């Protein structure tokens, strides 16, 4: 067996029913897909299989023999962030960061499919990707902004929607 991983072809030695997650993490040392549950419930192990987001913990590697697998390493690196990665950074959409790679994978596929910038639509699209830290607001904002912008000036910092900062003392 082999897969096309982020553009290159790699041979797979693991047994055919090994989950793609285990192959990526344990055989190929690609650790950006996270083992959050092994139950298909949290979404943290999601990668793109032939361009479509898929739960690697529920995917036997033999089922993707010959397929094009894209992890976040295949999107952008620190020198070359994609618009979605920049938007996540810029909006504070990552806190502990554990759900972030798969969140960005799913958001990227959503936007590549011409997903709208409407918060409700983004909430629905990402409902299978759990985050315990952010309350999702900043993630939704980041994806919404990425839907309308392509470049970000990382030095300009914007407030979260609906935040007001009042001076101290008696108000």
């Amino acid at each position, binding site marked *: 067996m082999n897969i096309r991983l982020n553009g290159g072809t790699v041979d797979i030695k693991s047994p055919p029913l090994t989950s793609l997650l285990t192959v990526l993490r344990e055989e190929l040392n690609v650790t950006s897909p996270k083992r959050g549950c092994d139950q298909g419930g949290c979404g943290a192990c999601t990668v793109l299989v032939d361009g479509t987001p898929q739960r690697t913990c529920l995917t036997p590697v033999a089922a993707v023999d010959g397929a094009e697998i894209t992890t976040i390493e295949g999107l952008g690196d620190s020198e070359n962030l994609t618009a979605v990665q920049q938007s996540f950074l810029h909006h504070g959409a990552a806190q502990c*960061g554990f759900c972030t790679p798969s969140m960005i994978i799913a958001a990227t596929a959503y936007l590549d499919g011409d997903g709208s910038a409407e918060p409700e639509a983004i909430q629905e699209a990402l409902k299978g990707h759990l985050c315990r830290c952010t309350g999702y607001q900043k993630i939704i904002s980041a994806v919404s902004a990425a839907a309308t912008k392509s470049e970000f000036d990382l030095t300009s*910092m914007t407030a979260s929607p609906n935040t007001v900062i009042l001076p101290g003392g008696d108000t």
Partner: protein
Amino acid sequence: MKAVGARMPRYDGVGHVTGQTQYVDDVRVHGMLSAKALRSTVHHAAITNIDTSKAEAMPGVKAVITSKDVPLLEYGHLSGLGIPADEPLLAKDDVRYLGQPIALVAAEDEDTAQAAVNAIEIEFEERPALWDVRKAFDADAPRSHHWGNWYTHFEDEMDRRQIRKGNIEQAFEDADRLVSGVYRTSAIEHVPLEPQVSLVTPEPDGRLTIYSCTQALYFSLAVVAAHLEIPMNRIKIVGGTVGGGFGGKVDTATETITALAAMKANRPVKWRWTREEEFLVSSTRAPWHMEIIDAVTNDGWILGRKMLTLHDSGAYARFSPYGLTKHSFHHTGAYTIPNLHFDGYVVFTNRTPSTAMRGFGVTSISFAVETHMNRIADILGIDPYEIRLKNANRINDTSPNRIRYTDPSTVDVIHAMSNATGVELAPAYAGATRQPREGDMLPDHLVSQLKTEGH
């Protein structure tokens, strides 16, 4: 540009958005073994027999750890606060909750480790289990803990946390109304996206490197060193980057047992919990049972509060006595109540031990007090903003344990909220400040309280 007050991108943000941040399960060490635990299949039982010989003989099995391998089996995580030890690192004579760890197997791969766990022979003699904190005090209640059904080691060996202030009987006599309510919260799971995991590597110089997802590196260092009875400089905890914690990773859940396995096998060992273990075995936020009866006047002053709290600690104490004490210190919420009578118990049941979680001890009291305040406002026909502004902590008011508030901003946040919700406040309340009480905001029942000694 100024650094403080700026919306700086996270220091670790680029690592997060590129998937390159390294969490414990991402660490790769040559020759690493996998670990699986033998856990109790019953809620409460004596262990009458355990035989690990078949497991130890299996090919690929490198270490099997049981209670007899632990130098100091019981160590109180809060011994510094005078809270004695009650929980064995691995179950020895009995098990008190479903899933309690009894043994750990380290093997060449997870399948072998699990097969070896299945090969350990163990026999239980089941005992009746206690679930309901409200039944813990019944004469015929099952006994859940060797100390009895509730914690008995508060200061002066008291079996409860008490707060006494002012004269509660007088307050109840002076009250127009006595408003009572019962409030309960549930156990919940922390659900960090990163499950509990540690990786321990024996170093050539005899030290241990412990890759840990702990929220408290030095706390875990002290706990592991104590159980292993070795100096702190024999251990290096590597961590600081955690995939969510919320309090659950203050427990040193995996580090010590994994270290014992690594030492015995003289190989690196990783113990990663499954999500199912997280849900069924990892400690939870505690369920709380809270009963409040407030002495109130018809115009909305709270003269006094009697309160009883039962905190479901689960099978062992862990941080529960600390949590209940914090709970008791805050049982008046953001309000000043001069006459108090609080009793709180840490109750042991045969469920998963509860532990710290975001808002530890106070999340429960905030729910109870705030709901109760709104019920009082409702029954008296008073605006919920105004009853809060009336009783809100002010500078020089004193706390349940007689500490003077120096700069409470309850009034300010309520004002900001009334602005946000467009609620019109009566002038007396719109003009309230956090400054020391005077005039209508200094009723007789608070005058004496302000005279009482405070720090």
